[in-house]
């Protein structure tokens, strides 16, 4: 079959280009250029070899067993040393040359313990404006075992959000102890002695049942027998903000 002259010429050019590509790919250029796999393998090695900056509690403990035990007995038992002292792998490698920071300023503690409503219920917090403003926390609280100088007497320290909400509500003047029986032990080891919660409508009825003489509840009494069907009061009324809000 006769090939047209122009096709032949074009064919030669295309053939040369294809041949060049094949030659480059399979003969001239190294195979490693054409696969990502060996590079990925190398990357894993490189990644593993990156320097470690945080030593980890186990490393701190080698030299600071005393502090570790002190911390382990207290409320900060589960906080890694480097949370407060910063990355310390360099210190482990050369203790005298690289000293970790010692967070002694107020701000260092307020990072966790300054009041923030989004923190979980039960987490101890202080209002920085009210609680010994200007003073260093470490003056009264030993950082590794931060037992407060006096056992707390009110609930705001750990239940700040509830207290802040209640303060704005109709129950602002109702003490927590009116509805919750709190053992002293709760202030020392909270989870070991949980306060009670109201368990019947009659608990709320003490103030809110019809005929109640409580001056604060005078305008908010109901016929317990008829009001709210068989539900308990707190199914609908959030006790810390009983009037609700739009």
């Amino acid at each position: 079959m006769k090939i047209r002259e122009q096709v032949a010429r074009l064919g030669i050019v295309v053939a040369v280009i294809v041949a060049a590509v094949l030659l480059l790919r399979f003969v001239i250029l190294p195979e490693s250029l054409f696969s990502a796999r060996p590079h990925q393998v190398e990357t894993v090695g490189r990644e593993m070899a990156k320097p470690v900056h945080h030593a980890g509690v186990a490393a701190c403990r080698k030299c600071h067993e005393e502090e570790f035990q002190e911390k382990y007995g207290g409320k900060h038992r589960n906080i890694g040393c480097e949370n407060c002292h910063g990355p310390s792998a360099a210190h482990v490698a050369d203790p005298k040359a690289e000293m970790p920071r010692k967070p002694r300023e107020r701000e260092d503690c307020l990072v966790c313990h300054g009041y923030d409503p989004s923190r979980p219920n039960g987490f101890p917090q202080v209002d920085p404006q009210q609680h010994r403003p200007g003073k260093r926390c470490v003056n009264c609280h030993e950082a590794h075992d931060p037992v407060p100088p006096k056992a707390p007497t009110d609930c705001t320290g750990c239940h700040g959000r509830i207290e802040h909400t209640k303060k704005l509500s109709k129950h602002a003047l109702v003490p927590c102890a009116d509805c919750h029986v709190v053992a002293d032990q709760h202030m020392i080891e909270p989870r070991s002695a949980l306060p009670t919660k109201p368990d019947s409508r009659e608990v709320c009825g003490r103030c809110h049942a019809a005929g109640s003489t409580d001056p604060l509840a005078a305008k908010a009494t109901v016929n317990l027998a008829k009001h709210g069907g068989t539900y308990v009061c707190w199914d609908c009324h959030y006790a810390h903000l009983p009037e609700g809000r739009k």
Partner: protein
Amino acid sequence: MSNAIPESLIEQLSHQLSQVIGFIYPNEVETQWAILIVVYPYITGIVAGAFILASLVKVFNVVEVQPIYRLALLTALAFMLVAGMPLQLHLGHPERAYEIFFTPQTTSAMAMFGFVYLWYLMGILLIEIWFEYRHQLILMAQQARGLMKPVYGALSLFSKDVSPEALAFDKKASKIVTIIGIPSAFLLHGYVGFIFGSVKANPWWGSVLMPIVFLMSAIVSGIAMVMFLYILLSLLRNEKLDMRCLDKIGLFLLVAIIVDFALEALDYIHRLYQSEESIGILTELVSAKLFTSMVVVQLLLGMLLPLLILVLVRTVRFNEELRKLLYFTSSVLLLLGIFSMRWNVVIGGQLYSKSFRGLMAYKMELTGIESLMTALVLLALPFIFLTVLFKLLPPRWMESHAPGHA
């Protein structure tokens, strides 16, 4: 560490951070794909559109459009040569770009489609142009003197056969190549749409219609560009315009606009009707961040107005001069409108948070690598390349130098 970060980047990001409305994931403050990635689909769209217009002549025998056949091919080539540049400039490591060809990952649309169809179309385009110009190149090689003689000789691949059979073969080959080329032109810009359309993380992009919408708007922009150039060149060279040709181009443009508009309208209606979770933030995106660029520029000025003009031109008998003016205006509006569409897709998709809770900003740099200046240079470059191509492969040369063969 901070000294290694360019000051201009910190400034840009600080500004963008201050412009955040609502909540965004913190890493979203940086606009990852900026103006250069708006320019890229715009340019490849014109390539695909111009090629498809040219294919109408060869494959569907629309003889009225023959006068702009070579112009369309050269336009496609001129823009094709620039197409890769915005991508190259955008990369964090342009010197590693070869890796896309050496170790393409088969699951990546960017690797696979770009790799195959970019080169496929480049090959198709060059072969097509060669068959179309072969006779002329041979004649130019014969008539040229000095440096240009071997250049044209080489361009003709030292072919010599100008017998009627050979010339007839050229025409046939050209047709076959074009037929093969049409799907690749579709795929060239379809894949760009797929790159966006396949991103499930971003509901502004991730849609089945995206590749098709991109393709249709590419066809609109390609035809509009050829029309624009045809009128402009006839003005600059003081040449007579073939009004039959222009009217035919206008007709194809009208059809393309109607299809494009229908598809884009379908996309919006569908979104609004389905009302998925993202609809809240997306409607806020359009009204707060994209109102001017989308409603005013893309829709009203860039699509509906040219549509109206082109319908008017077909229904009312305007004289030649007025028709030329109207076509020119429409093509300019369309080119602006399609650019705006690319902006609205690329930048728009990065102006809202994937948390659906916030909006961000994009502050385009005026100078620098990823900047307005670079974008304008890249958009001007194809016209410079086209000028060179016109000098090298003059489309009307045969008419004046070999009248019997034109």
